[in-house]
């Protein structure tokens, strides 16, 4: 990837310890912004983010949020991060359209490696818009 990537963290607990770890981990790739669940949809409509990270431990209704993001932004890469991953929640997240479902690693290197892979993923071709203008609408 050339240029700096733009990341968005959707969290119910702003300025958390994990957010600071995430922010530090992402320095080589780009910049991290944070928002609440309430403002997320509007923000995602207004701006283009290379990767959206949903802090599933602090927001309610993660699958719904992921579906909303995906339906508003066909090209969203969405990673759901949680303190306590379970297989049923992982299934729900992927069925809602998540790109990945991860444990909230505290190790910066591990975190960076996982997010780097998510960022490199090619989106399925049928999710692309017919008109490039849709990206900014």
């Amino acid at each position: 990837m050339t240029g700096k990537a733009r990341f968005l963290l959707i969290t119910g607990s702003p300025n958390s310890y994990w957010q600071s770890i995430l922010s530090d981990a992402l320095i080589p790739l780009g910049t991290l912004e944070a928002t609440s669940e309430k403002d997320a949809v509007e923000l995602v409509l207004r701006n283009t983010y290379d990767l959206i990270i949903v802090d599933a431990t602090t927001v309610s209704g993660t699958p719904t949020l992921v579906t909303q993001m995906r339906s508003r932004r066909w090209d969203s890469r969405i990673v759901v991060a949680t303190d306590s991953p379970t297989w049923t929640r992982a299934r729900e997240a992927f069925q809602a359209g998540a790109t990945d479902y991860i444990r909230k690693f505290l190790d910066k290197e591990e975190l960076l490696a996982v997010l780097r892979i998510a960022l490199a993923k090619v989106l399925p071709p049928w999710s692309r818009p017919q008109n490039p203008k849709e990206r900014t609408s």
Partner: protein
Amino acid sequence: MKKTNILFADNDGEFLESRSEFLEQEGFKVYKALNPTVAKDIIDQGNIDLAVLDLRLLNDNDDKDFSGIILAKQTTSSIPKIILTRYPTYEAVREALAPQLIGLPPSVDFVAKQEGPQALLTAIRRVLRFDKLFQQGINSLADRINEDYIDARKQAQVYFLTSLLAALTGILIIFVGIGLLMSGVVAAGVPGTIAGVILGAVGALFFKRADVGNERMDRYHSELLRIRQFENLLVACDELSLAGQQENSKIKIIEAATDLWLTP
């Protein structure tokens, strides 16, 4: 009605028998495999509609055994796969359902054996419904274009016959008019010749309409051809030996079709 062919791969023979029996009672034709090699052979034979793959196909006691997912990755993505396991973990779900770098996940659903036969049946029906909708979509589009093609052909034929009839009648009237003029019957010869010329012009007009009809026919025909080519190319992808090649080729075909059909 043709039965849906399901491959059921599980190294637990007893479980394989009981679930296969359940699915057969639900109206499916079940092909059974006790290991990945047999399962791959059955998939490669090419008449499987959906595959249910046990996560640990080699060793139930090995928590690193993801052989079911490996098999899903190694075989064609045109056959939807459901991963089934007695040992569900979030890591396994991630491996099974997360999109790979190329964009598609190895499997379309993940079911735990503890969820019972009904959960598996629901997952199978959901996957088949999507597959059926896709095929129905393609077929109804092809049918619609075919109907339009037949309409356009009929219309073009009518225009052509009308133009031919009008032109021939026009020529005949012109000849009669000239004959009358030469015989000195000017009062009848002049209007007759004029009427013949007008009829000839009407014929030419209908001929032009027939041309438009033919163009429409050509357009519908080439659309029909494109749909068939699209289907054939997708099927041809499955004949490629490597799963990666299959995926790449399918993505290229879908992208090209998207550009062709949907870009204004």
